[in-house]
């Protein structure tokens, strides 16, 4: 017993030292997550072949960050997925099989996302994936496509998906190229921002893919709309101070600066601008146009600042569907508000996924990746019968109708690249909260 204890101490001591040394070389994050199975060997094509008897549950993978700085994304998405999955199971499941949800934590890091994806695809044999985010999309897209896994992501706006997808990859969130164009348009024309026609724009863009994705669309669109780009700076994310960067931005004399960075960096940058006496305005992306950003900043810094947001889809609001979704999710998940970022996108993503599976089962088809994936655009495409929820759509499918899913964020009609269009809202910060300054329908872009 004594020896055991001594050995134990020795071992744990060793581990601690190694951990300490590993951390010492640090800097590039805790490359953790590798401990999850990386069993990439062998037959990767057995995905969802449904060989194990029809009573086996179908698995839906939720491939998102559940830990780290972006854990809020997973936290906003997962309850919505669970809620719809319960609804599907209450309706008798898919062809008699229940759905279950499997989480894959990407930690918002490409390394971790690869091993999480391998686990979902090769070990869990998921039939469909909800996620990932822009941060990890390029790291995992090939694995997902090669293994014929249908993906509907409510979270990846990255422009790298503009010319990909449509076969296995779909999204229920607007592309950043559309978002970037919306920022340029809204800055250029007073009717959308309620302040002025901005002429000279500076860009400060974080040096990560998720931010860089916005840069080109904003720059080229703003010039196309007749504005001048005074400078387009790449800034390093996570720095202690951005005094020099802000000085450089101010030297180019813009009257509005588009800030494409994390909430934390944005706080530092806007405060540095305030300290240095910057008199122009700021324009933020969806990442900062939330209460989190305003509550950590001082009103004197943010007053008048513009932000981009997904607008409420008018038909969904007028029909009361938005309100009833908010009521339902706040009760289901115990949230204080239903309008969390990506919640409505997830509702649409999971409904489309569920209806596609239902369609395949109704056609007596094999619930394989290719079959489900090809049903995804079908159930969302007009004309025929418009449906707005899984339950409604499932009974229509059973009745033999060709359904057209109409979502909360937009009509959800996938184009050939699996993208959708949705309206944008331009927000203005005033006394610590965002108010709507204007609205940009997709036609205006």
């Amino acid at each position, binding site marked *: 017993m004594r020896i055991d204890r001594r050995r134990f101490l020795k071992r744990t001591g060793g581990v*601690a*030292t190694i*951990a*300490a*040394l590993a*951390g*010492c070389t640090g800097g590039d994050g805790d490359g953790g997550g590798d401990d999850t199975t990386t069993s990439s060997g062998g037959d990767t094509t057995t995905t969802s072949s449904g060989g194990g008897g029809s009573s086996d549950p179908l698995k839906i993978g939720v491939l998102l960050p559940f830990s780290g*700085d972006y854990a809020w994304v997973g936290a906003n998405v997962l309850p919505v997925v669970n809620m719809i999955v319960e609804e599907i199971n209450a309706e008798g499941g898919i062809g008699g099989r229940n759905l279950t949800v499997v989480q894959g934590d990407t930690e918002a890091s490409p390394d971790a996302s690869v091993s999480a994806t391998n686990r979902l695809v090769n070990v869990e044999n998921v039939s469909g994936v909800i996620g990932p985010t822009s941060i990890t999309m390029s790291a995992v897209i090939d694995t997902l496509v090669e293994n014929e896994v249908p993906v509907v992501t409510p979270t990846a706006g990255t422009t790298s998906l503009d010319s990909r997808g449509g076969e296995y990859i779909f999204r229920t969130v607007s592309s950043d190229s559309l978002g970037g164009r919306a920022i340029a348009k809204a800055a250029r024309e007073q009717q959308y921002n309620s302040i002025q026609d901005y002429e000279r724009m500076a860009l400060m863009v974080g*040096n990560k893919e998720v931010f860089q994705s916005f840069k080109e669309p904003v720059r080229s669109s703003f010039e196309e709309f007749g504005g001048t780009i005074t400078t387009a700076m*790449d*800034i*390093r994310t996570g*720095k*202690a*101070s*951005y*005094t*020099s*960067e802000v*000085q*450089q931005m101010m030297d180019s004399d813009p009257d509005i600066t588009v800030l494409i960075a994390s909430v*934390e960096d944005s*706080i*530092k940058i806007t*405060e540095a601008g*305030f*300290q*240095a*006496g910057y008199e122009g305005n700021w324009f933020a992306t969806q990442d900062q146009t939330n209460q989190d950003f305003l509550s*950590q900043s*001082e009103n*004197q*810094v943010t007053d008048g600042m513009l932000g981009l947001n997904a607008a409420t889809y008018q038909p969904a609001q007028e029909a009361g569907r938005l309100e009833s979704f908010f009521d339902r999710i706040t009760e289901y998940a115990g949230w204080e508000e239903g309008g969390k970022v990506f919640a409505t996108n997830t509702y649409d993503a999971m409904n489309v996924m569920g209806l596609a599976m239902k369609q395949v089962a109704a056609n007596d088809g094999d619930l394989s990746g290719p079959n489900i994936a090809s049903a995804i655009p079908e159930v969302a495409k007009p004309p025929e019968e418009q449906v707005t929820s899984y339950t409604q759509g499932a009974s229509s499918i059973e009745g033999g109708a060709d359904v057209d899913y109409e979502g909360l964020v937009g009509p959800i009609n996938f184009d050939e690249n699996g993208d959708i269009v949705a309206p944008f809202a331009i927000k203005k910060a005033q006394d610590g909260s965002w108010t709507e300054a204007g609205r940009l329908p997709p036609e205006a872009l």
Partner: protein
Amino acid sequence: MVLDNLLQTVVFGLIEGSVIAVGAVGLTLSYGVTRFINFAYGEFLTYGAYLTVFLAGGLFGLSVPLPAAAVLAIVVVGLLGVGVSRVFFEPISNRGALPLLITSIGVSFVLRNLLQGWVGVSARQLPIPLMRRTDYFGLVRLTDLELGVIVVSVVTMLAIHLLLQRTMLGKRMRATSGNRALAEVAGIDTTNVVRQTWFISAGAGAMAGILYAVLFSPFRPGVGFEYLIVVFAATLLGGIGRPYGAMLGAVFIGLAMNFGSTYLSANYTRAYAFIILVGVLLFKPEGIRGGEF
């Protein structure tokens, strides 16, 4: 315009140099008497900043005014430093520098994760007002807080100078640092001196953390460990174990980081500190300021 920019960069360099100086002096003092590099030192910065946030924010039931919260935090972290040294370092103090160094890395992990487990990873800020910079002589621009940071740092440097030169403790510290065995033979209770030095060192670390938090918020629990690298650069640049060298090194590093950011590229701020450091280690390994202390 060119002159303006140059002067302003010098001022930014001096501001950051002030923070680094307080941290570097604390680190170098403890090295002077213990002869090992304390990797847990970064956590003293972190604890200083977080304790101040909590004390001033009323987390412990009563809301203390910010300056008092800062002083209280410095004392508490000073005591923490003494405690850490008694629990982790004193028992193995005669095993040489390497075990101590490795232990200090472990201690830093323990401290950081304790804090993280307690307060979480979300970013914090000191409850200080945001100010616009005011013009001084039409040449340089500073906020009152930035000016305050410089003043506090200079006063601290003076206090440490007086401590080392004019007090009995300072003399004992210098004696212990110079030759511990000889100091002991001369009747100095070196164990006690070491403990007092730990208190001063950890307290200086906490103060550096608070000054950092005043300038660069919001911050997270990893802040001290990350900034430690910069503090190291200043310490080694000045010649480790030499307080005056550390002060000089800190100003150098602060200027290098800000000049590099302004005139080369703002993306490599901390890399400039290292370029200088590597240069010094290659050509003048004893530090820019040779000789004793």
